């Protein structure tokens, strides 16, 4: 499968310059590569929530479950449990995964279920035209907080580390090569993986310059070392100025997750009768 054949007839309605294009192109490339390497395309299932990010599933011609806001994770888990050999890739916004649906995110990490979360973290609500999100910095002036927020953002990677996620990485929408690399790694990882993409919303929160000046790629970092991972995750708290590391932050392998124990067919009729006769 060629990257070009992965498109659909849906008209792309993202703003010119939107960071989502980088995610779309990186994901399409990775899916195309995986299919060339032998993954049947039908074994990829994409799930998305609601927000600008969600449109991505309309633009990729494979199985997709376009869910509702904040509720992309529970169906993704069900899809994986139903068919453990399917690759489940979940696209979620920061409002989606870190706000409305945060309980599902924490529980999915806790279960270490083998799905890949790609977070389009633009730190603003785009589709609802510019309100603060859980990762907007302190003092963010959005349309619901015209005098600035009075609360600090959450550090989603730190939260995920504490919740039991076994693969964590960060990229930006100005770094498509890195995105391809970490998407591949995240999809290949057995267990719960999350890539936080600092995806820029050009219309409501244009952070291209800000990120370009601060991001750097991790070198000599051992993602298997949870202390190193935590230190790097805490280097930038999504609030105060600091260098912003990109790449694979944490990786813990061979952790038991929710495995599917396939069951053979049973004679239900008989089992019902057995239960009833034991209830006399």
């Amino acid at each position, binding site marked *: 499968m060629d990257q070009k054949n992965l498109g659909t007839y*849906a008209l792309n309605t993202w703003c010119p310059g939107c960071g989502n294009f980088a995610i779309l192109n990186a994901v399409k490339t990775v899916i195309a590569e995986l299919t060339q390497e032998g993954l049947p395309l039908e074994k990829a299932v994409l799930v998305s929530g609601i927000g600008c990010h969600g449109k991505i599933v309309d633009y990729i011609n494979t199985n997709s*479950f376009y*869910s509702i806001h904040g*509720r992309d994770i529970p*169906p993704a888990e069900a899809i994986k449990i139903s068919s453990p050999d399917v690759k489940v890739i979940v696209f979620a916004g920061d409002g989606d995964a870190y706000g409305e649906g945060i309980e*599902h995110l924490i529980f999915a990490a806790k279960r270490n279920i083998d799905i890949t979360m790609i977070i389009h973290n633009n730190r603003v609500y785009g589709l609802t035209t510019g309100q603060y999100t859980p990762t907007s910095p302190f003092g963010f002036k959005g349309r619901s907080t015209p005098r600035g927020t009075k609360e600090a953002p959450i550090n989603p990677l730190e939260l995920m580390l504490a919740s039991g996620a076994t693969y964590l990485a960060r990229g930006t929408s100005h770094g498509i090569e890195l995105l391809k690399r970490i998407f591949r790694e995240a999809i290949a990882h057995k267990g719960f993986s999350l890539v936080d993409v600092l995806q820029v919303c050009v219309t409501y929160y244009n952070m291209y310059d800000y990120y370009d000046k601060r991001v750097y790629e991790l070198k000599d970092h051992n993602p298997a070392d949870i202390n190193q991972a935590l230190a790097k995750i805490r280097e930038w708290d999504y609030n105060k100025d600091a260098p912003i590391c990109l790449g694979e932050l944490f990786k813990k392998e061979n952790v038991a997750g929710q495995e599917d124990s396939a069951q053979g067919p049973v004679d239900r009729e008989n*089992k019902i009768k057995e239960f*009833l*006769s034991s209830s006399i």
Partner: protein
Amino acid sequence: MVDFSIIIGGKAGFGIDRASVIIGRLFNQLGYRIYIYRDYPSLIRGGHTFSVIRVSSDRIAAHRSKIDFLLALNQDTLDLHRDKLKDGCFFLYDPELVKVPGQACGVGVAIGKILKEENAPEIMRNTCIIGALCKAVGIDAKTMEDVLRKEIPRELELNLKVASRGFGESRELTRVEPLVRERLPVVSGNEAIGLGLVKGGLNFYVAYPMTPSSPILHFLAEKATEFGIKVIHPESEIAVILMALGFAYMGKKTAVGTSGGGFCLMTEGLSFAGMAELPVVIVMGQRPGPSTGLPTYSSQTELHFVLNAGQGEFPRFVAAPGDAEEAYYWSAAAMNIAWKYQIPSFILSDKNLAEGIFNFDINSVEPIKEENPLLWDKTSPYKRYLNTESGVSPLAFPPEQGAPIKVNSYEHDESGITTEEPATAKTMTEKRLRKEKYLSGELEGYKTINVYGNKDSSTAILCWGSNKGVCVEAAKNTDLKVIQPVVLWPFPADRFRDELKGVKTLISVEDNATGQLARLVKAFGFDVDEQILKYDGRPFSVDGLEEELKKWTRKT
């Protein structure tokens, strides 16, 4: 006709529930039919818990307010229930714990002393009093032992010993003669629902605990391997319904169970099911609200909630079974209908049905349709939302080679791609709603409305759900007709009109304060003349309802 009732009561934690089922099974072994009403507060230890075990030679599904025997495991039980005794002295108690006011009376059994002597734990008070009851009603020691052997999972020998000591220290008050006839299984309404779902092809049951539906979760989790299903308890009801939709997308038949509060959280997922045409069965066990309300009691307050829940307009199926057989039948049917029409399908239960204990005669259940859902024939490119005459699009499930399967919560075209185009929006809305028309047609072949009692009576009782049992029995005694719609949506208005022929006075009986079924039938042009409403969380008793009915029938 033999007909008597027993109350066993004590504090929560005394094992009253278990004991009441054992007592029910004892009489069941003697060939009687039984019904158990369980009354317990929302706490783990303390409070007052009791069960009414009614025993009859006829099928029953309701309790009477007067009782024949009282098993008082504590003082409260005697004080709260003694006035219900027909013979004020037919009670069993431990004189150490329970003081009997006035003249010496009842059957005292030194339960505490027996436990001490046998070195048995406090929880075995219930076994001891069951032993004493057996003697009091003339059940022989052998029958008692047979039932206990089957019912007691732990420390059987000690329990048997304690029961036989209770038996030995009691005395015979009466003799209940065994009946020679077929014994029927004894199940809870929730178990019947669970069995029906399994019969209907259940693959996954997903639920977050909530009274009165948690026992379905427990029952199916316990029996998962046996029935070849999987049971999942996720983080919230929101996750429950969304997971169910994920399973449906993968072709797995899924049911969820909850009560009003949990269902509130499910409504966004319900609406999604309507838009994305993902089948799911929702067991909605009603209890009194608003909000936390009376968590362990019963109500029929969610009819309009279930009929209207979820934003937007989409078809749904709602059935409210009235006893164990109907619970079994309609749970299986609801699954079949959900998949045939790709819609959400409801079993609207209530605590009295869910946690009531009934006889269950599987042989009296109508044959259950088992149809395959409409599947993609692989001859033309796959479109998840192909616009067909019936509105039902052929299904395919991932992974399916050459067929991208796209479901969508947005309005979408036939391929499942988002659209805001007005003509498509109109077409797709009509496609979804058309399914209900076909479902209504199919339901004409189902027993959507049951009628009982004197079919020529010009006065009829209108009831639904667990009130079936009490209404049928009260109607028999008052010579009235009973009309019980089981399918509440799509409402079988034509059949309802037929059943109303010759009825001059229609009296509705409901467990709510506003007459929800009366309001529903009104929307179809049918007037209810009188309403008998109960909204204290407790079920109608047969005699209580008869009194109410007499008030109205005397008036006409």
